[in-house]
């Protein structure tokens, strides 16, 4: 949009420059034309005066003044001859001579009007006339001070090297006006062109303004005057998430307002709420109507306190709560729930960040509405989240992201066959933080990707150092995520010789039979990596997974194993899983074996491998 506006401005500048160039070019041309015409007339005057001079010299070879003084007929004869040369343009044609007092007097006057008598004085521009007398050279005088005359051409009559008189031809201002009339159509032509261009420019400018306004209004919600989703779409293409915190706001029980009071009142409530929100935010914040009664606010965080969005969100909430809404003499109570995403920059995309704000909004609704929930404080279980996104980032940077290892044993001889790598964070005070304390905070963020890379590097380092088999946990969504998958693949490719020692345990809880997943798992397996399904038997376990994916290991969920000794259902399910896995050639590991009794039951069910506190707890060491 800005680019198009720039193009418009450049075009306008080019047009203006062209207009100015054409104007000056035409002015120059006009001047040249004018000068050419003037030169033409002066040239004509030169010829006339030359002829007059020759005629006078012919008729009066010498003593011009004396001869003419004594010969009236000669004077009349000459004047009549020269009269034919007098026109509207050559207004006066006469001959003057200078007396002893430098006064100029008539010798001859062939003018058709305003004639002077012989020897009568005429007040002229004495200085220039004297110059002509002295130099004996022709001269054209431009009469700036005389209204009816434009120029005077002077030609001295020289006899035997002496100036005896000056032939004068006065050009009427009519001449210059005629020239101007000749030029005028060009002037007018240019004027019309200029007007046309000016009108075009006005139209162009008007169109641009209309275009800008249309674009502006196409981004504005007409009811609330907030930006609309169209704007959001464009905004998200350019947004730098590190510059904002996000508020997702939703009017509580808005459907009831519409149902009880009608849509008109509903619209008025929306408008009032929007106005309050707008009053509470700053000019640099972006206010968007996201849905029917949902709003998004992008709070500019530059040079602002850490939790600026929370502060603004609370102000908005309190203002809306305390505001008196009166419609048709009825008082209405309106409240708003808010989700505040304080770290949108940790999310891969703006949509993920908005989704996070939406989830927090949902949490606010779930807790009773008319509140703000942000991702800086409480989680669902009410416990204080130990590690925030920034905390995890710091842990990675300070190498406090570590692996704990829990051995998996062969139940027949209790020998350790492999280990499961479990991610932990070591706090500065050496407290060990479990994944449930930080993983939810970093899901769908770039930090999660970073963490995955670090873990897989550590896993391969341990495999290399200890020459053991190791398994690590990934979600199915991680395999489907191109970034994470490429990191995993890259690490495997860099450690090809160790790939056989790696098992990837996939958390299976969604419908996973997608061709893409099959393709990616096949690719990993081609390197020699084994694939295990973790927590099988819980949640949405689906046996069809064995039809579509080539699984090497199956880990029975702890919820089944824990209850083997007191739940028939758990026992039968576990038995069934053991049998069909064996039939399919899939190895089975029972998790969460916490005592000898359970261990024995598991062994009796024909399950080969076990894991749990009964054998070993996770520790930072390889045993």
């Amino acid at each position, binding site marked *: 949009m800005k680019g198009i506006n720039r193009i418009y401005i450049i075009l306008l500048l080019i047009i203006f420059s062209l207009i100015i160039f054409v104007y000056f070019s035409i002015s120059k041309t006009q001047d040249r034309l004018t000068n050419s015409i003037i030169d033409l007339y002066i040239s004509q005057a030169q010829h006339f005066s030359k002829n007059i001079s020759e005629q006078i010299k012919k008729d009066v070879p010498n003593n011009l003044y004396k001869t003419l003084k004594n010969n009236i007929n000669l004077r009349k004869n000459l004047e009549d001859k020269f009269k034919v040369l007098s026109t509207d343009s050559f207004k006066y044609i006469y001959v003057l001579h200078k007396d002893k*007092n430098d006064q100029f007097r008539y010798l001859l006057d062939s003018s058709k009007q305003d004639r002077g008598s012989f020897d009568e004085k*005429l*007040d002229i521009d004495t200085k220039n006339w004297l110059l002509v007398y002295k130099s004996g050279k022709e001269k054209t005088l431009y009469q700036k001070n005389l*209204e009816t005359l434009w120029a005077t051409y002077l030609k001295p009559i020289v006899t035997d090297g002496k100036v005896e008189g000056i032939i004068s031809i006065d050009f009427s201002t009519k001449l210059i006006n005629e020239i101007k009339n000749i030029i005028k159509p060009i002037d007018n032509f240019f004027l019309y062109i200029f007007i046309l261009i000016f009108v075009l420019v006005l139209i162009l400018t008007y169109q641009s303004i209309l275009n800008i306004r249309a674009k502006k209004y196409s981004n504005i919600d007409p009811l609330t005057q907030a930006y609309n989703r169209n704007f959001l779409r464009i905004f998200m293409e350019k947004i730098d998430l590190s510059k904002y915190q996000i508020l997702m706001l939703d009017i509580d029980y808005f459907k009831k307002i519409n149902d009880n009071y009608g849509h008109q009142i509903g619209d008025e409530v929306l408008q009032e709420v929007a106005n309050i929100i707008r009053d509470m935010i700053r000019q640099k914040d972006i206010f968007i109507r996201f849905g029917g009664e949902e709003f998004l606010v992008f709070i500019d965080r530059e040079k602002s306190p850490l939790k600026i969005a929370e502060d603004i969100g609370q102000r908005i909430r309190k203002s809306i709560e305390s505001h008196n809404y009166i419609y048709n003499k009825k008082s209405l109570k309106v409240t708003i729930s808010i989700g505040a995403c304080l770290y949108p920059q940790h999310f891969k995309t703006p949509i993920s960040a908005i989704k996070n704000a939406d989830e927090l909004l949902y949490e606010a609704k779930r807790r009773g509405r008319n509140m703000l929930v942000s991702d800086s404080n409480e989680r669902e279980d009410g416990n204080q989240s130990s590690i925030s996104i920034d905390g995890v980032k710091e842990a990675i940077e300070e190498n406090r992201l570590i692996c704990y290892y829990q051995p998996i044993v062969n139940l027949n001889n209790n020998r350790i066959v492999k280990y499961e790598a479990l991610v932990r964070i070591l706090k500065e005070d050496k407290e060990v933080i479990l994944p449930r304390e930080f993983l939810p905070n970093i899901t769908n963020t770039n930090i999660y990707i970073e963490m995955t890379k670090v873990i897989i590097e550590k896993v391969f380092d341990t495999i290399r150092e200890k020459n053991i088999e190791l398994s690590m946990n990934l979600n199915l969504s991680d395999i489907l995520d191109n970034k994470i998958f490429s990191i995993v693949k890259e690490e495997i490719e860099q450690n090809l010789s160790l790939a056989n020692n790696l098992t990837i345990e996939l958390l299976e809880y969604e419908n996973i039979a997608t061709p893409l997943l099959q393709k990616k798992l096949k690719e990993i397996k081609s390197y020699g990596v084994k694939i295990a399904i973790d927590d099988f038997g819980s949640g949405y376990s689906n046996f069809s997974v064995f039809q579509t994916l080539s699984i090497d290991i199956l880990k029975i969920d702890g919820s089944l194993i824990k209850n083997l000794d007191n739940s028939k259902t758990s026992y039968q399910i576990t038995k069934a899983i053991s049998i069909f896995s064996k039939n399919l050639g899939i190895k089975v590991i029972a998790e969460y074996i916490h005592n000898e009794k359970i261990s024995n039951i598991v062994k009796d069910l024909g399950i080969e491998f076990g894991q749990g506190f009964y054998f070993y707890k996770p520790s930072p060491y390889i045993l």
Partner: protein
Amino acid sequence: MKKILLLLFGLTALFSSSLTTEQQIYKTVLNALFPNKKQLKIWIDDKSKTQIFENIKIVKNIENADLLILFKTKTVKTDKMIFIANHHILKTYNKNRLGGFYWQKGRPNLVFFKYNLEKFGIKLPENFKIYIENN
């Protein structure tokens, strides 16, 4: 003086109407002719030219006038001093014309006649000498 007059003509032609030019010229000329006259009384033959003589008393009868200024009339019979404002009637009043101011060939012309100046005992300032004709 000629230069001053011409400059005056030029400037006034450029920046003001011909009316103002003529006012200035007549003021200068009449001042030069009658420097000591407290209240000069003139008679003019063209009432449309009254505004040229704004601050000068214009009389209705020739008898009461000190000076006649003639723009068009060729047949005024008087012995009073005359100032001619038209080249065409300049030669008509040879006996009592002091001088004249007229436009000829687009140029302002000023002339005084020595004989009549002396006859009426008028002495012009030195800088007007160039305008004085002997005949």
